[in-house]
């Protein structure tokens, strides 16, 4: 038997509950993770012989982290917003990556290969960027960006195709593709793309293809930040305002029902993975053209993996991905100052991030803890897997 029929006054209550569940869980997760991080600091302090025990070290650490992420009033008074800008610089690729993973979740696909798509996206951008390094900037930027998108898309297409037509699970194939990307990057950067005279593996600079700095985001807030915002709105629009987005969400929520309704889940799978790969590729473009501007063989970030946490925290909502990415980007930006002022290693950020991820993966459990007695009305609809959960 199904849930009781909603009484007429249900609407207000349900939507309040919905808002609560959307905000409460991420909030609880973030606060809980910060508390756990503080506990880790407190507990490990005594393990260090000779160190004076400082019961407020965790406060110093978080203060420094926040200051590193947003700056301080003195700087603001001097119109110096470099800390905020550096948070934005860290945020932009996470937005792209989060959108990539989140879009996959919406279609019921777990694109764990954002990392590989990120790398080849950057690779595409550096190849064309170097090639067009002295072309007019708009042309060079567009060329390198499109190349990166195309590379990322190709990297997403392959697992999508394998999933749709060979039944290969996308988690496995995207992980494999990550390794291929790492090796491809290493081979190209130390081979054909290497600056011939350089003693080490590094490519040429992308020159004019580099993202320009946005005038009011000095010193280093580049075009990619703007593109990330546009992408978030764009992906939201695609998902919720286009027929294709409808198909993607329908396939994710119920592949059977969408097939019965005349949609073609296989093609949607391929298209979704391709689009997701393109977004992850853009994250790579964003880092390469906006930050590093050339590629060393050590190029590689954890953006691809952090993106999974971002997408989960935002429950795959493209607009919610922006604040989620800001949180992670800010923590990253603040990690430097935290290391200097509190002498806490950057690994603390990893700890907090890991706790957040872990908590999100178990979020159905957390949701149950938050409002324990909803069995029979909403509890029964709780999805079993985090991916399906995120797909809502």
């Amino acid at each position, binding site marked *: *038997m199904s*849930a009781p029929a909603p009484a007429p006054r249900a609407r207000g209550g349900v939507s309040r509950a919905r808002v609560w569940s959307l905000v409460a869980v991420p909030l609880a997760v973030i606060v809980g993770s910060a508390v756990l991080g503080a506990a880790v600091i407190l507990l490990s302090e005594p393990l260090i012989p000779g160190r004076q025990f400082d019961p407020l070290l965790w406060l110093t650490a978080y203060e420094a982290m926040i200051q590193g992420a947003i700056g301080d009033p003195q700087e603001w008074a001097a119109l110096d917003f470099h800390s905020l800008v550096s948070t934005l610089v860290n945020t932009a690729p996470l937005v792209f990556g989060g959108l990539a993973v989140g879009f996959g979740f919406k279609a019921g696909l777990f694109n764990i290969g954002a990392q590989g798509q990120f790398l080849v996206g950057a690779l595409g951008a550096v190849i064309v960027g170097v090639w067009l390094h002295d072309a007019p900037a708009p042309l060079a930027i567009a060329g390198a960006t499109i190349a990166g998108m195309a590379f990322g898309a190709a990297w997403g297409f392959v697992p999508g195709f394998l999933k749709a037509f060979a039944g290969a699970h996308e988690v496995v194939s995207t992980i494999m593709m990550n390794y291929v990307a790492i090796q491809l990057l290493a081979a190209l950067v130390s081979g054909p793309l290497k600056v011939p005279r350089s003693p080490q593996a590094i490519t040429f600079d992308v020159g004019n293809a580099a993202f320009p700095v946005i005038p009011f985001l000095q010193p280093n807030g580049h075009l990619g930040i703007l593109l990330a915002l546009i992408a978030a709105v764009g992906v939201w629009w695609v998902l919720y305002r286009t027929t294709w987005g409808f198909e993607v969400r329908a396939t994710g929520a119920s592949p059977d*029902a969408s097939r019965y309704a005349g949609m073609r889940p296989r093609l949607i799978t391929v298209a979704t993975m391709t689009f997701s790969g393109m977004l992850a590729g853009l994250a790579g473009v964003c880092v390469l053209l906006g930050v590093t501007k050339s590629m060393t063989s050590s190029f590689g970030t954890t953006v691809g993996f952090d993106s999974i946490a971002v997408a989960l925290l935002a429950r795959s909502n493209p607009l919610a991905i922006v604040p989620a990415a800001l949180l992670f980007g800010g923590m990253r930006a603040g990690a430097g100052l935290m290391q200097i002022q509190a002498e806490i290693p950057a690994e603390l950020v990893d700890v907090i991030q890991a706790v957040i991820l872990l908590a999100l993966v178990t979020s159905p459990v957390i949701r149950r803890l938050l409002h324990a007695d909803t069995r029979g009305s909403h509890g029964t*609809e709780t999805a079993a897997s985090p991916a399906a959960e995120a797909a809502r």
Partner: protein
Amino acid sequence: MTGQSGTIQAPALEMRGITKRYPGVVANDGISLEVRPGEIHALLGENGAGKTTLMNVLYGLATPDEGQILLDGEPIRIAGPADAIARGINMVHQHFMLVPVLSVADNVLLGEETMANRVFLDRKEAHRRILELGRKFGFEIDPEVKVSALSVGWQQRVEILKALYRNARILVLDEPTAVLTPQETEEIFAVLRRLADQGHSIVFISHKLYEVLAIADRITVIRRGRVVGERRPAETSEDELAELMVGREVQLTVDRGTSHPGRPMLRVSGLEASDDRGHPMVRGVDLEVRAGEILGIAGVAGNGQDELVESIVGLRRPTAGAVTLDGANITGHSPRALNEAGVAYVPADRHRFGLILPFSIADNLVLTSYYRPPYARGVVRDGESIERDARSSVERFDVRTPSVTASAATLSGGNQQKIVVAREFDRELKLLVLDQPTRGLDVGSIEFIHKQVIAKRDAGTAVLLVSAELDEVLEISDRIAVMYGGRIVAVLDGPTADKNDVGLLMATGGTARDGAQIAKASA
């Protein structure tokens, strides 16, 4: 009936003023219920009326916001299922909680073994008790037989046995007959009657009126979380109960009228199809459905009906044969092409195939038409026209919902099916394919859907109805085709078909006369 005597006994179980609220919904609103020893007490209500919530309260799965539970006159608090069982309250769920690979004895002991105050199970003792209980209540069963080898009816008896083994005094059965054949239903009723005679109290949850009248000593009807009446079978009728349950007068059987068949609309010839594992399931089916008639396909589940339907609506590629629609060959066409050609399809499992539960009602209403005007211009969806049309559909098809933006999951089963019906029926159709369109629905919804089907027929649509519920096929079909072993073994005239004849054809695949002979021979 047997369970009651002239003196009024103290109730074995009493629930007083139970109120249970969920966010936005009052599932139980001051429900009171008392069950006397040796009484079979039916709890009657439509889906979503609050029956399950009430039983969850009784079983300790939900904590009531108000009210109390008394056992033998003593107020108690039930902490959970284990507590309920310890107090002699047991529940037999609609979906059995049995482990198919284990034996009857193992299943009965499952969970019990931890309560036994010893290290090793005393299987000999368990066997003895199982046999004894079976003998006492009229269903002896071999404790060593594997549950997977038992029929559904016997599996249910194992569930009851489990409860009795735990010394249940109060037995709650949630829709126990939903999965049973008419014969099995009668057998289980006999068992329940015996249990009651020996002093057990039984709460029988159902929405089937004739069953309730047949078995219960008292009937409590609930609607929208409230008790709306208490009756004794002798004092009431199906019509009155239905009216109490639904809240208005209902027509229990729809007047199918007379059909005026037109030109052949659907023609299936020499159709063969295999299931997903490649086993041939449809082995050469020929059939024809004319415009303005309802062809019902009767058959025991698994005789190729699913594959036949899927082949017709484009979800399965037939291995041989042809399907034509209004003279045009549509064999192997995609679901979308068929949809555009005027074929509508109501799948059997609305949760899995008919609806996307997390999506809004409006989105579910455009699940097959989202991509074309007026719901989309190019690739851009037109949310306004989607919602406008949704509001009108919801009104016309009487879907009870606060808003078309509410998710389909928040609706009751009947309202959910109304959305599928609204989506599939609400346009010009050549062919309407219905697979178990009223499964699990309440009386009111069944009435509504049957009326819609007949209206569609009268508008000149060819209707193909597949149902495992023989009653439904008999009730609204103009012609009845019986499917057995992947073939159509007989086609009968709907209004004159005899239930027993069709039943035998379904079971044996023989002709009616063969069937009658078989019946005579076995008698």
